[in-house]
């Protein structure tokens, strides 16, 4: 996380926040260029991997990995709201089967986008996968089944141990 720099001292006047559209401008333009160069599948893979790495770093630096699962989920909810990433809600958990269903409302990546008829939150898929793997020590495959971009009000993710 050191690579992110000392934002407080670097931006004493502007601070650590910026509008969501700027974030999306960067993310979507990068995705667009990647897709033009490598195609849709490869682009998804790259962005999902970036999200995964980001999830691991986020879990290590902003979450308490020693908490019980329920307390850990409560902390993720709190942190994601505080960092304005989204409103995480848990719909279903079966740790024995290694299956979790989560929703993210007001998602940073997609809420408010036009309907594309396909899910777009591949970065989130990787991000959640990175967090869950860091906490449980087991690899998790996370896939988005509903998305704002498919006309839904929330992004719904199914996470399963691989």
């Amino acid at each position, binding site marked *: 996380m050191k690579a992110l720099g000392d934002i407080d001292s670097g931006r004493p006047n502007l601070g650590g926040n910026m509008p969501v559209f700027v974030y999306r401008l960067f993310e979507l333009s990068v995705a667009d260029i990647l897709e033009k160069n490598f195609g849709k599948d490869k682009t998804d893979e790259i962005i999902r991997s970036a999200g995964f790495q980001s999830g691991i770093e986020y879990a290590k630096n902003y979450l308490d990995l020693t908490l019980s699962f*329920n*307390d850990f989920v*409560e902390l993720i*909810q*709190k942190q994601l*709201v505080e960092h304005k990433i989204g*409103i995480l*809600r*848990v*719909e*279903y*958990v079966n740790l024995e089967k290694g299956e979790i*269903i989560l*929703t993210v*409302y*007001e998602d940073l990546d997609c809420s408010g986008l036009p*309907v594309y*008829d396909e899910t777009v939150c591949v970065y989130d898929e990787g991000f959640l996968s990175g967090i869950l793997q860091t906490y449980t020590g087991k690899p998790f495959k996370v896939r988005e089944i*509903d998305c704002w971009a*498919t*006309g*839904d*009000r*929330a992004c*719904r993710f199914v996470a399963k141990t691989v």
Partner: protein
Amino acid sequence: MPDRSEDAMVLISKKELVYISKLVENLKTAKPMDYLLADPVEIKNSYLQDVQKNILILNEYTKELSAYSLAIAHGDLDVEFPTKHNYLSGGLKELHSNLLHLSWKVNQVSEGNFNQKIDFMGQISDSFNNMIRGLIERDARIEELILIIDVINQYTNINMYVHDQESGQLLYDEEERKSKKDNKGAAPEDENTLALKKEFADMLYKKMKEEDISSSEWDVFSEYNDKWYHVYSLLSKWTDDKRAYFHILVDISNQKMLIENLEFQVSRDQMTGIYNHKFAVNTVQKFISTQNPFTICFIDLDGLKTANDVHGHQWGDKYLLKFIEIVNASTRNKEYFCRVGGDEFILIFPEVGPGDMLNIVNRISDNVAVFNQTHEFPFKVSFSFGIEAFDKNIHTDAKAMMTMADNKMYILKRGKYINFKKI
């Protein structure tokens, strides 16, 4: 050339229009379309074909939405989400998702995990988060009380009941908690014991409720377990909108028994087991202070010293015990019979005048006479007595009143002696 401009006129038959109109009508009123679909009208116009296609899709979405909303309304949260392109169901899917989340949260709470919060769900969030706050506060209060009780329990046996102030419902029973904690699998208490226990707990509630007091301290005997408790009762906050009576019960059975034993020993004559001089003085003084009528009778055994000297102390003791036996047989249990000296006794009779006292003394005399007829002892049993009835204008001091009765006894004894001499 066909006119392809946006303003071009197209030919549609009346039959086609009527059919499409019926489809729309049924869609609007959510009526089944099956009969219309079973006997379709062939639509030739391509524009109208698109309209028909979209009406049928909308019909499928509406049917799906209707079934989905009914399942949610019936609490079936396992129902599958509608198909991805059914945009009509967006709001309902959000509600479904929120209910699933709420259900998961409530399950966490029911498993004792109060570290739960719901954000951004309007009134549901407010209510849920308030409930959690209340539960945490109540839990902390109970934990605090349990900690206090556990600490006190190391030194004494303590119990606690908590009753809802309004309904009287028993909210907490420390004994039950301890019993569950210590005797997992132990046999449950029988119905009679449980009923007596409930009666006891209800009695604590009723006292506070009926007397409308916020705190009290009292000793009470519990029949269901034969114990004495010192009870501290207090009205205090239980939850944000509920107040409750807290009854903390300290088991004082051992102390009670010890005190009773001590009181018994202090008030009894060691040799005979009847009340002693100290008890007699205290009781007479107590009666004087209440100003209620009572009468005392001073009794002196005749010839006890002679019996000791001539026949031995063994006969002297038998003389004493036999006389006590006769007096006890001649009186009821309401009176106090005390040994106030070696051969001196006093009877204290509440609510009795001098006439009745004389009748009782005569009854004792008659029973003594009957005994003397048996010739069981090598001497006659006899006694002298003096009766003094309480007069509030005269008697203020117990010892003085007892002395006056003693003096009357002495006059009688001296008369007997003179008569004896004459004989």
